[in-house]
């Protein structure tokens, strides 16, 4: 289209910005219903124990208590995105410290919490499994004795405490090693990271006179909430309506269930609306974390830097329940070759159960762990071969049209342009000529590249033309703060050539919205955007059909004109406003104009002619975005403390529907990655979380982040993306840890293979280096 853009490509302020700067945005904690009760949970003190007996009479007798629920009040129904292994509340046994074992609904929060303290439970403690090694020991206690019987949504390879095993092979790895001149091998370890959406999780449920339930909650998908609640409570999905308030951040933690099933059961039991908001400490203890990982990675190359072979062995600590773990494992392995041509690659790994908080989806979904190892090893190869790290990468990056690991062709690939953009902006080639660092400080640059998908599963959109020619867009996609409401509205407005303010957006509602798998996998702009475009095109078709009848011409002779008019091509004064068309449709002929579209991402990930796979959790993952990141760090020689001084991140997003929102994703991802790289770690003291508070768990503050943080948008259109767009939600985080690790190496000469790269870690690595040099 050569016509000027009306909405797409403009940094329109987010639709709900005014609502948010005036305090009027309503989040789950701000909602109330008449007669509402307050819920609270009692948590397990044990990591692994059989539940013998509940003593609830004292709690029930407390004035103001309306319901006390334990595992005895729930049927054994199970939920889980990949393996159905989790009940709404612990039944029979507890599997991690903090797991909800009982719940109370009472007249106020204080009473509900007091009642929880009055509940006593007899346990028989079982030996706990706290590490990957313990879980895989031959005589390890089983965390899920019935694992073999659980329903699985894919052919999972499960055994003992191993939840799933996945393997992907391309080429011939043995032959690959023989062809290498240099081989780098290393072990890497990454921690559990907490999401810390500033809004803690919570839910509010209400049952109407017919027994139908309405549920509001902090979520990333009203449809996943509906599925999880109905699966874990044995309810028909038609009985539950899920709605969403504004969401105070979600980075994967609000995608699958948290307290929604318990809150619904409390509402069903009491017949009253019940609201339960987790404390920050509970939110840390019972929701989910990024998978702690251990990796063994080997990468080999020719003397000229051509990459030949890689093997990646990955162990993920899944915690007590499966959640998204098999997906994270499979996706991590698919990403483990990075955006490079490596003809011989074998990636394999498993996710294991432990008696700890479940791990699940977190921005990056397994990619940050494998990227840390892979991008570190590329720098090690460059060093051994005395090549510039950028030159080594440029020699090996996938070129447009080449295939991803597994065989899927990559249609749009602006990686080379991302690399040159950050190389130029950062002054990489002249970095050695910069003024020396102040005394006691060491400075260095580091680079890392990344790719990430946008895609996965089903989505839909409905566009309705109202009587006056304005439009209502309904997608079911939850805006978790990233700005998808605005972006989808822009796509719809552009397709119909009307101003943004002529489109209003329906809030997600499982009764009224088309299915949307969720705000996850960087997918909303790409997948839901495609559906919005499809639905808008259908509305356009119907508008033209009406206009063709009115003008007695063919629909192909008609065009949509800016501002909401349809007219005959080449005849400027032959046109009608949408109002005229819509009024005719409503009152005289054809019926109200509704455009609907739904689709599921269906391009195969695996090409059996190129690769083989075992235990792959999904067959069709998505399209690829690309990122190049350069950082400059300063390491304090005395303390080992690393400071990020400057950063340049370029991301190929296909087309920036809203450039300012795209920058927001790049910058936000970068800073979350900075936390992951340098400071963030959920620590267990034995079986118990040692730092479940913002006092003890450090998330980056404004002082940790440089003002010189430049986001660069690169646009290589995705052929089937809406206006060429693809995703940007996660990718900015992925290369941060390895870029910083590579910069620390350039600054301080030490190579760190464990995250977070704390001051102590740097000092220990230096000490180890000095010791080995002395030997």
């Amino acid at each position, binding site marked *: 289209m050569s016509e000027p853009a009306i909405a797409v490509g403009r*940094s329109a*302020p*987010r639709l*709900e*910005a*005014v*609502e*948010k*700067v*005036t*305090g*009027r*945005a*309503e*989040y789950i*904690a*701000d909602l109330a219903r008449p007669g509402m009760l307050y819920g609270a949970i009692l948590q397990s003190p044990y990591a692994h124990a059989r539940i013998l007996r509940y003593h609830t009479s004292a709690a029930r007798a407390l004035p103001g208590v309306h319901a006390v629920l334990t595992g005895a009040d729930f049927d054994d129904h199970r939920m889980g995105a990949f393996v159905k292994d989790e009940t709404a509340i612990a039944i029979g046994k507890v599997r991690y410290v903090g797991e909800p074992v009982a719940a109370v609904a009472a007249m106020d929060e204080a009473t509900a919490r007091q009642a929880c303290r009055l509940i006593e439970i007899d346990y028989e403690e079982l030996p706990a499994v706290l590490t990957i090694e313990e879980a895989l020991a031959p005589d390890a206690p089983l965390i899920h004795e019935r694992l073999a019987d659980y329903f699985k949504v894919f052919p999972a390879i499960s055994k003992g405490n191993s939840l799933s095993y996945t393997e992907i092979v391309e080429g011939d790895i043995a032959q690959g090693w023989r062809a290498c001149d240099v081989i780098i091998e290393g072990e890497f370890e990454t921690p559990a990271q907490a*999401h*810390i*959406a*500033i*809004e*803690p999780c919570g839910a509010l449920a209400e049952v109407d006179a017919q027994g139908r339930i309405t549920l509001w909650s902090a979520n990333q998908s009203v449809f996943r909430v509906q599925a999880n609640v109905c699966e874990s409570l044995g309810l028909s999905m038609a009985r539950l309506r899920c709605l969403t308030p*504004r*969401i*105070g*951040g*979600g*980075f994967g933690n609000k995608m699958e269930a948290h307290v929604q099933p318990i809150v619904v059961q409390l509402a069903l039991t009491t017949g009253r609306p019940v609201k339960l*908001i987790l*404390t*920050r400490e509970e939110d840390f203890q019972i929701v989910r974390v990024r998978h702690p990982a251990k990796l063994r990675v080997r990468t080999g190359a020719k003397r000229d830097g051509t990459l030949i072979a890689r093997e990646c062995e990955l162990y993920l600590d899944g915690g007590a329940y499966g959640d998204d773990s098999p997906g994270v494992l499979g996706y991590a392995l698919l990403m483990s070759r990075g955006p490079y041509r490596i003809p011989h690659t074998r990636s394999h790994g498993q996710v294991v159960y432990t008696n700890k908080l479940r791990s699940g989806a977190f921005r990056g979904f397994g990619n940050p762990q494998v990227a840390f190892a892979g991008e570190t090893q590329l720098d090690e190869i460059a060093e051994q071969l005395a090549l510039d790290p950028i030159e080594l990468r440029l020699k090996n990056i996938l070129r447009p049209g080449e295939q991803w690991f597994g065989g899927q062709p990559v249609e749009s690939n602006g990686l080379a342009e991302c690399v040159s953009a950050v190389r130029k902006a950062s002054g990489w080639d002249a970095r050695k000529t910069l003024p020396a660092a102040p005394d006691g400080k060491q400075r260095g640059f580091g680079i890392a590249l990344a790719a990430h998908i946008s895609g996965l599963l089903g989505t839909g959109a409905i566009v309705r033309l109202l009587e006056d020619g304005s439009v209502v867009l309904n997608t079911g996609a939850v805006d*978790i*703060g*990233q*700005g998808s409401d605005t972006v989808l509205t822009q796509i719809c407005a552009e397709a119909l050539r009307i101003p943004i303010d002529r489109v209003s957006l329906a809030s997600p509602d499982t009764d009224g919205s088309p299915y949307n798998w969720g705000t996850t996998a960087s997918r909303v702009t790409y997948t839901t955007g495609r559906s919005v475009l499809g639905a808008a095109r259908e509305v356009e078709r119907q508008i033209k059909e009406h206009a063709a009848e009115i003008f007695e011409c063919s629909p192909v002779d008609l065009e949509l004109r800016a501002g909401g008019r349809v007219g005959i091509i080449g005849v400027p004064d032959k046109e009608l406003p949408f109002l005229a068309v819509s009024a005719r449709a409503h009152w005289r002929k054809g019926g109200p104009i509704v455009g609907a579209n739904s689709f599921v991402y269906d391009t195969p990930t695996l090409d059996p002619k190129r690769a083989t796979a075992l235990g792959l959790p999904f067959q069709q993952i998505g399209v690829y975005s690309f990122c190049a990141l350069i950082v400059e760090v300063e390491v304090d020689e005395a303390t080992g403390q690393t400071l990020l001084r400057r950063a340049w991140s370029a991301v190929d997003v296909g087309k920036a529907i809203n450039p*300012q*929102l795209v*920058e*927001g994703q790049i*910058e*936000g*991802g*970068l*800073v*979350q990655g900075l936390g992951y790289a340098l400071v963030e770690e959920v620590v267990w003291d034995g079986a118990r979380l040692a730092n479940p*508070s*913002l*006092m003890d768990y450090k*998330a980056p*503050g*404004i*002082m940790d*982040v440089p*003002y010189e*943080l430049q986001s660069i948008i690169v646009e290589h259109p995705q052929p089937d993306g809406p206006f060429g767009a693809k995703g940007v939600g996660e990718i900015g985080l992925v290369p941060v840890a390895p870029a910083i690790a590579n910069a620390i190496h350039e600054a301080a000469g030490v190579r760190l293979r464990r995250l977070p790269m704390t001051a102590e870690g740097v000092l220990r690595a230096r000490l180890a280096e000095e010791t080995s040099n002395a030997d």
Partner: protein
Amino acid sequence: MIGATVTLTVNGRDRIIAVPVDETLLVTLRERLGLTGAKLGCNQGVCGACTVLVDGRPVRGCLALSINCEGAAITTIEGLGEGRSLSLLQQAFVAAGAVQCGFCTSGMLLAATALLAEKPAASVEEIRAGLAGNICRCTGYRKIIDAVLAVATGRGP
């Protein structure tokens, strides 16, 4: 719990409220006065989402007790605008893309309002120092600094 009566001037309006002696200002504002713009993020005074102004100074609503605010002038996000229009800082936050999920935004705006009242031409370093007590998990802070800087340098939103 023993109660007490406190008089607060909230967003310019005198309010006489009976509160338990251990009730925080955040609970009083949210639950008794229906001013839900201040958010509970950590209940420990770390995240800053509950920041409100007490006599012009930024205070953690989750740590301050209402009975200790007797006679104080409280400004919440709901009182930040000028009449029905947004304050310059609010406008700047909208224009700069300094808002994502919005949960930290009220606290951030009130902390920034106090900062600019004290240092109307605040530099980048002064802005960073002034907002060091407010965590944002979405934006990466860059666009928040830009928003405050736009007002501080008189460039306007």
